């Protein structure tokens, strides 16, 4: 009876850890899909879309994760196929540096104007 209990505990704990790893995989899968643009839809991510394109991407992302690819590797794979546009969060490179730096420059310029006015008023 005692042995049976031990076996039951081991069996359940293995079962739960399997469930947890599946859950983690699903979480990663959804995170990636939410960050991929559906290229044939209007303002939808692959996660939200039911189009043929989105369903193919869903299958391939799932396959790549099961093959052991990391999140960045999946993005790189898709970027190689479709360019930077497919990722909602583009990486900083020579094509995107204006996109990343312009808001920062505008913020600094705005801050400088506000600061100048404050100093002038005082």
């Amino acid at each position, binding site marked *: 009876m005692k042995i049976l209990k031990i076996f039951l505990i081991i069996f359940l704990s293995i079962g739960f850890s399997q469930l947890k790893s599946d859950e983690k995989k699903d979480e990663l899968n959804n995170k990636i899909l939410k960050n991929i643009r559906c*290229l*044939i839809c*209007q303002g939808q991510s692959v996660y939200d879309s039911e189009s*043929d*394109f989105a*369903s*193919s*991407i869903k*299958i*391939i992302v799932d*396959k790549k994760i099961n093959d052991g690819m990391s999140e960045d590797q999946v993005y790189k794979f898709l970027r*190689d*196929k*479709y*360019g*930077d*546009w497919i990722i909602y969060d583009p990486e900083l490179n020579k094509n995107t540096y204006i996109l990343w730096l312009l808001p920062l420059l505008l913020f600094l310029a705005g801050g400088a104007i506000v600061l100048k006015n404050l100093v002038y008023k005082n």
Partner: protein
Amino acid sequence: MKTKFNLIILFIFLIFCFIIFYKGLNNPNIYIPKTNIEKNLPTFKAKDFSTNINIDSKKVFAEESYYIVNIWASWCIPCRKEHSLLMELSKNQSIILIGLNYRDNLNNAKKFINELGNPYTKILIDNDGLLGVEFGAYGVPETFLINKNKKIIKKFVGPINKKIVEEIELIIK
């Protein structure tokens, strides 16, 4: 006088808006980033349309020739429109046409080919669209031109037309 002037300005502004929106309606709504970089031909395994046997992409693209990969489906209306042009292209000896049957019912696809003719040297089955993703395709129809060094040098999204056929023929000359 002033109200008349304002009305004229408003009228011109409305016409301007109308022209902008009207032009916008005719523009394609798929954004395709311009890429001048040649891409390597992907390697994959796929089922042959006629034999249903798995074949390696290296065997499909074994010849030292220009290739055209055309993604099509029997349910795709623009594919019917471009089919006659593909038939015309298939007569050119210096190019090999490969078809990629995208997310289709096999019987319907066979009917489509029997009805309109087969321009392809080989047709591969792409049931879940994964081969399309390997090529960087958005959907159907889409056409890729591959040079003798096995690089994808051109990508045409949507049905091909006379102008595109002329462009392809000029490249492979």
